[in-house]
C-alpha cells in the first residue's frame, strides 16, 4: 500500500490536533506516514504521539535551516521525502504557512495543489468555495496530489502505528535561503487556542459597544475552552487586532461550535464561518441575518445573555 505523507505540526513538543485529524484521513487513502520538518531534536518527543494515531513511519527532516529561513526550506525538505517515499498523496493542514509550503512543494515536484479541502480521497478533494455556497470535487491531474486540509474536517481517531523512524538527508539550496528569519516574536495571546484550528470559537461583533466589553466574549470563550474571534466592525474600531477577524478578509474557521455574539451576519462574515458544524447566535435584533443560519438563536441583550451563559456552562461543567 502506498504511503500518504502527513506534514506534522507541533508546538512545544506536542503534536497539534489537526495533525491527528490528517493521520486519520490518510488511513482511508493509504499507509499514513508522518513527516517532521523542524529544528534538530524536535522529532523524538513527537514520535510516541504520532504512533498513537497510526503513523507507520516517521520521516525526520531536521535542520537549523528550517527555523532559520522562511517557508522555502520546509518545501525542499518535503520534496526530499516525496522523492524517497513515492507517496500516493501529501497532506498538510490549511494554515497560511502550510499552504505556502504545499504550493512550493507542488511546484517543485511538478504536480498540483488543492487548498482548504474539507475531505480527501485517492485522487482529489472536496472543497467548499465562495464562503460555502458551492461544493466542488477537484483532482490533481498530474503527479502526486498535494492537499491542504481544513482543521476540524476529520475527527481524530487513535490507532496504533509502528512509527518506524526514517532519517531524511537534505540540503537547503541557496534559493531556499533567500528569506532569512531575523527574529521570531511571540505576541501576548494568553493561553487560548489558535483561532484557525480551534474546535470551538466564540466571536464578538459591534454589539459589544466598546473595547472594554470584549471581556464578556473572552469570559464566555474561556468557559468553553474556545478561541476568540471578531467581526470586522470590531477590528475596524480598533478594539481587537486584525488577526482575530473572522470572514472573507480574515480567518476562515470551521469549528464544531461557533457562537456569534452581537454579530449581524453580513455576507463577508458568513464567508468565514458558515461551514461551522453548529452555529449559535445571540443578537437583540430578531431580523439579524445571522439567525438565518444559526442552529440555535437567542433574541436578547448580549450583556445579560452572554455572562449568564458563561456562568451556566461553568456550573454544568461542575
Amino acid at each position, binding site marked *: 500500500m502506498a504511503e500518504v505523507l502527513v506534514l506534522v505540526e507541533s508546538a512545544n513538543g506536542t503534536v497539534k490536533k489537526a495533525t491527528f485529524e490528517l493521520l486519520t484521513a490518510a488511513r482511508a487513502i493509504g499507509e499514513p506516514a508522518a513527516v517532521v520538518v523542524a529544528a534538530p531534536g524536535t522529532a523524538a518527543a513527537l514520535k510516541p504521539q504520532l504512533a498513537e494515531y497510526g503513523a507507520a513511519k516517521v520521516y525526520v527532516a531536521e535542520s537549523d535551516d528550517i527555523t532559520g529561513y*522562511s*517557508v*522555502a526550506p520546509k518545501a525542499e525538505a518535503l520534496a526530499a521525502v516525496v522523492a524517497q517515499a513515492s507517496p500516493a498523496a501529501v497532506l498538510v493542514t490549511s494554515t*497560511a*504557512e502550510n499552504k*505556502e509550503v504545499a*504550493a512550493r512543494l*507542488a*511546484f517543485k515536484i511538478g*504536480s*498540483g*495543489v488543492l487548498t482548504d479541502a474539507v475531505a480527501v480521497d485517492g485522487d*482529489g478533494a472536496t472543497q*467548499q*468555495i465562495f464562503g460555502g*455556497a*458551492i*461544493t*466542488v*470535487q*477537484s483532482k*490533481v491531474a*498530474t503527479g502526486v496530489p498535494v492537499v491542504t486540509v481544513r482543521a476540524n474536517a476529520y475527527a481524530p481517531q487513535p490507532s496504533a502505528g509502528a512509527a518506524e523512524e526514517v532519517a531524511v538527508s537534505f540540503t537547503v539550496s541557496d*534559493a531556499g535561503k*533567500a*528569506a532569512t*528569519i531575523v*527574529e*521570531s*516574536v511571540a505576541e501576548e495571546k494568553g493561553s487560548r487556542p489558535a483561532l*484557525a484550528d480551534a474546535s470551538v470559537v466564540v466571536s464578538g461583533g459591534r454589539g459589544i459597544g466598546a473595547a472594554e466589553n470584549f471581556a464578556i466574549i473572552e469570559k464566555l470563550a474561556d468557559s468553553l475552552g474556545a478561541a476568540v474571534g471578531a467581526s470586522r466592525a470590531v*477590528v475596524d474600531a480598533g478594539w481587537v487586532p*486584525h*488577526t482575530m477577524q473572522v470572514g*472573507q*478578509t480574515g480567518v476562515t474557521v470551521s469549528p*464544531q*461550535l461557533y457562537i456569534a455574539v452581537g454579530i449581524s451576519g453580513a*455576507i463577508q462574515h458568513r*464567508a468565514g464561518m*458558515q461551514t461551522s458544524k453548529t*452555529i*449559535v447566535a*445571540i443578537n437583540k435584533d430578531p431580523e439579524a441575518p445571522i*439567525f438565518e*443560519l444559526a*442552529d*440555535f*438563536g*437567542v433574541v*436578547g*441583550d448580549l450583556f*445579560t*445573555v452572554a455572562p*449568564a*451563559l458563561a*456562568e*451556566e*456552562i461553568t456550573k*454544568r461543567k461542575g
Partner: protein
Amino acid sequence: MERALNIVVLVKQVPDTEAERKLNPSDNTLDRASVDAVINYIDEFAIEEGLQLKEALIESGQGGEVTILTVGPERATESIRKALSMGADKAVHISDEAIRGSDAVQTAKVIAAALKTIEYDIVIAGSEATDSRAAIVPTLIAEALGVAGLTQARKVTVEGGTATVERVTDTGYDKVSGSLPAVISVVEKINEPRYPSFKGIMAAKSKPIDVKSVADLGLDAASVGLAGAPTQVVSFENAPPRAAGQTVKDEGDGASAIADFLAGKKLI
C-alpha cells in the same frame, strides 16, 4: 547614489463578493462574465504599499516607479485603470484566451514569465484573492523566480538592497528579510489605501498599458489554461442552504436554553 527602484504591484480582478458568484456548468471554471468585477480587495493595500514605497524613494532622492501587472481577461482593464488612477505609473496586462481556467501554479508561471520581460526590484502582491482564497500565488512566484518570498507582511521596510517585513504568524510575527529582488505579499490593514483623486482619474486615461499575449512571454500556450492545468474541478453542486434552526426570545431563560441545546448536542 543608488539607482531608482522598479516596483511591480500584482493586481487581480475578481468577481464582486456582494454578488452571487457562480461556476460555468460547461467546464467548471469561474464565471467571470456574469457578475460585476472589482479589484481584489487586499490588492488595494498592495497598491498603496507600492505607492508609499515609491514616494519614500523619491523623497530620499533615489527614485522609483510603480508598474501594475495583471493577468486576466480584457475587462480587467477597468481594474488596471483604477490602479493607475490611484497613482501607479504604467501597467502590463497579460490577456490571452489561452490562459482561461489556469490554476494557481500556472498563473504564477505566467506572472513569473511576465516579470522576466520587465525590470523589477520589488514585487508586491495581496496576501489572498477573494475568489480563489488560496493565498499561494505570491509564494509560487518567488519559488518560480528563485528570489526571496517575504509573504503575509503587516509591515514592510526597504533599505539599501534589502527588504524586511513583519510576517504574521500563529503566535505573533517573524521578522523576515531578503535581498532584492524580492516578492512581498501584504495583509489587509497594513495601510489605508487612498482614493483616486479627480486629477488621478484624468491622468490614468493616458498612462500606458502594455497588453501582452502568452506568446509574447515566450510561453507555450498548451502549458497554460484549463486543458493543461495540474488541478481540475471534476464536478460541483450548490451547497444546500443552511437551514435555520430554532430561535427563542430571551425571557431570562435564554442562557439556560442555549446551555440545554449545547448539552443536547454533547457540546458541553
